[in-house]
């Protein structure tokens, strides 16, 4: 398991090599990319901010839970933060598995949970000059334990 938050470009091919082992018949790479529009507005650039220590722990926990539920081999997640422009890869999820069904399911679950639970935020800068913190997902907070 390899989970990082980084300010540098993500080495996608390196993550593929890192997760694959001889027992795996499938490797799935999801790459999230900065696109040029959001809800009808032209996007020029993004700044990602992170609560780094917690984010890495959260991503590791997500990977552990997903690995326990699906028959997968190695997992890797790399999330980029800092200033990104259109076309830059913001996140890569790499999943290796003996069979493809588990790879697709695990990959999908990891990206959904990364988007929904990990303390990372993005500020979008639009071509029309505006700049806002992009609206996001509200993480679930565990119930208090009964006394």
């Amino acid at each position, binding site marked *: 398991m390899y989970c990082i938050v980084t300010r540098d470009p993500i080495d996608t091919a390196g993550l593929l090599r890192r997760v694959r082992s001889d027992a795996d018949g499938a490797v799935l790479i999801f790459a999230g990319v900065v696109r040029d529009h959001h809800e009808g507005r032209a996007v020029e650039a993004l700044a990602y901010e992170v*609560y780094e220590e917690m984010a890495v722990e959260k991503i590791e926990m997500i990977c552990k839970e997903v690995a326990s539920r699906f028959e997968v081999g190695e997992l890797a997640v790399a999330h980029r933060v800092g200033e990104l422009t259109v076309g830059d890869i913001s996140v890569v999820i790499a999943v290796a598995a003996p069979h493809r069904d588990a790879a697709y399911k695990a990959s999908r679950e990891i990206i959904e949970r990364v988007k929904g639970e990990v303390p990372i935020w993005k500020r979008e800068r639009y071509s029309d000059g505006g700049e806002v913190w992009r609206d996001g997902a509200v993480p679930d*907070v565990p119930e*208090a334990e009964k006394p």
Partner: protein
Amino acid sequence: MRVKCLFFAAYRDIFGAEQIDLELPEGSTLGALIEDVRARAGVCAAVLPRQLVVAVNREYAPVETVLRDGDEVALIPPVAGG
């Protein structure tokens, strides 16, 4: 006791700080800290969600959580990674 309170993204803009140290009575709950912090938002208090999401020592935590000296509390705006 003293706890550290971190603000990120939109909340950093609202509170005008990345981090503040708070002096709280022993045995204070997270709920009490949230009330204290909310009062510092001034005119911006209205834009804060009714239920703030908060992490204690890097774990999302319920408002009933009893805080301890040295805890790291973070107010977590809606997340938007990926």
